[in-house]
């Protein structure tokens, strides 16, 4: 376990129980997931039962207990995107990447996720790879977009 890295995160907080979610967010950002051993330390330092730390870590969709890929691809399946084929877009990506939604490719390059709404409904269907938005992504545009990340 990289205790120094974890301490670096914890040192930014007063380590009150209310700091749990921000601390977990920082760990998720820094490690790309929530490693188990680190969670044990967090529970100790925030004076929380480990069970509560795990309940929070598993409740919210942004947390992951397994490492995510180098790139995270979020396909919007909000209402407008649903009507305009967001679900098919997600399926097409799943086929092309050879990975189920919510999982990471074997080479750890891509994690494929769906999200409730990215808020760019006027450009449906939309997806986001890392911090870049892609507008009006019809299935036929997928190969070209994926190429940029492979």
């Amino acid at each position, binding site marked *: 376990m990289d205790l120094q890295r974890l301490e670096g995160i914890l040192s930014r907080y007063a380590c009150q*129980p*209310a700091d749990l979610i921000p601390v977990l967010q920082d760990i998720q950002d820094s490690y790309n997931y929530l490693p188990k051993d680190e969670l044990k330390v967090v529970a100790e330092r925030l004076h929380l039962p480990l069970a509560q730390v795990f309940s929070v870590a598993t409740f*919210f969709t942004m947390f992951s207990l397994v490492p995510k890929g180098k790139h995270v691809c979020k396909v919007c399946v909000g*209402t407008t995107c*649903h*009507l305009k084929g967001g679900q098919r877009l997600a399926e097409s990506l799943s086929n092309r990447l050879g990975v189920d939604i919510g999982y990471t490719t074997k080479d750890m390059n891509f994690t494929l996720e769906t999200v409730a*709404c990215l*808020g760019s*409904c006027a*450009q449906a269907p939309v997806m986001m790879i890392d911090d870049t938005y892609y507008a009006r992504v019809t299935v036929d545009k997928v190969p070209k977009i994926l190429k940029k990340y492979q």
Partner: protein
Amino acid sequence: MPFIESVDHLTEYRRRVRAARDPQQLQVLVCGGPGCLPLGSEELAAAFAAEMEARGIAGKVLLKTTGCHGLCSHGVRVLIRPQEISYQKVTVEDVPEIVETTLLSGGVVERLVYHHPESQAPCPHKMDIPFYQTQNPLVLRKLDVIDPESLDDYLALGGYRTLRKILFQMTPEQVIEAVEKSGLRGRGGGGFPTGRKWRLCREAQAQPKFVICNGDEGDPGAFMDRAVMEGDPHAVIEGMIVGGYAIGAMRGYIYVRHEYPLAVKRLQKAIDQAREFGLLGTNILRSNFSFDIQISQGAGAFVCGEETALIASIEGKIGEPNPRPPYPVQAGLFGLPTVINNVETWANVPEIINMGPEWFAAMGTDKSKGTKIFSLVGAVNNTGLVEVPMGTSLRQIIFGMGGGIAHNREFKAVQTGGPSGGCIPPQYLDLPVDYDSLQQVGSIMGSGGMIVMDNHDCMVDVARYFISFLMEESCGKCTPCREGLKQLITILNEITTGKGEAHHVDLMEDICQTMATASLCGLGQSAANPVRSTLKYFREEYERHIRDKKCPAKVCRQLLIYTIDPNECTSCLACVRECPVGAISGPKKEPQVIDQDICVKCGLCVDACQFDAVKVE
């Protein structure tokens, strides 16, 4: 930036900012709102910067990336001021021509302006465009003018004037009275009178108290809160300071969902600026009022938009709702009195105090005052954000501002209120949009999402979509919601895959009734609305699925048959490459054929085909 020490200092600083500005200053305002950003606002702004530099006018023309300009379907939008020339669908390639024609020569690039759909007349100025003409923007009014990262821009337009007014001319009691008189009701969905909420909190005994801004915006299809947080963050902050002063709180929280990284960044920047300036912190403007704000990021759960779940999440717990009462005004954050309001509610506050409650109450209907922002999306020609007085009819919004249904299709329904809302059929197009009327027809205002559907959208599929969304998002704490949604989705999946049975409709109605009566929080209580409203207005469509195993809108994939029209197939093999199960084959350079025994009816071949050769029956 200076530290503002007193009221006079603030007035003086504002005067200086204004004096330094030339009203005739040529400005290029590139929309960086939620709709235009994915179309390349950043690249476009960079292209303008480079071209203006190359043409030697970089110092003379002011370039800004702003918040949402409203008409997202025609993005990326660029506004040229002071003429207010409004360009649409601008790409990097158009930049040299705009610089040459408009910035250097004062003319208009006609091919980039909106053309009136009927007369075909060009509409070069913003106010020539019908979409904008009939709106009444209060909350959105600054979004296409100010740089959201500039406090000076906000101050120049009168920002933080309200702060000065409340701190030195009004008692907290008077502030609450004004908000009560204005008739402002919560914009987050419930429509609870904001003034009354503040009063209840002020009257609560325990200390300290808190204010919270609900920026969770969980309704899929709604993005007005995102646009406001990203485009005019100081308005939200100023509103919260007013609320804090009114109820006697010293701390505020803004809860933003993590899918909105730009909103977080802009709000944080605005908070830092306000602090540095002395507009947040201890003894603001040397009054004895102290107030500060921090951001709390959501971790991705729809139910966290519900106030008690949101509070639990700020406290570091899982986002499960708690029974009310006690209401947050009595026992909210950390068990202390808390006022929680929606982003748009907060953003309305400064102008209400500034202009007076009568001004605000003069807009809208008897019971719903002021304006409301709607995100108008789906099957209309003009999609984007519109802000209209409460009571504007659905027809005015959809056919006026929205420009009617795209591709000359037929209007079928409009879904309002997000997953807790309902689908409203054509016979109610003249309904005035306010809290109460929408409820009467089985929907709700919600946060203002308006998703327009045409005859290519299937109402059973829409109900199935919302129920599956809610099932994913139900926290699972109470049984009616957890199990009810599970059963509803099982039935809806059967109906949409051709396994529906005659008794399913009654069964669903029964489940809906139980969920509405017995669920713990608003999520479960209203979760049945999408099913109930579609059953009420589109029962025939359910019956077609159940009885004839047909989907009239051709959406439910398991009820369709896919074939390739040999006359239109160009043998490009795009569908063959896309098909996940290898169902499409044929000799080289000849039309391809779909093997019905292998086809899993995923529909990807339809999307992959650029020649419309894949037919659906």
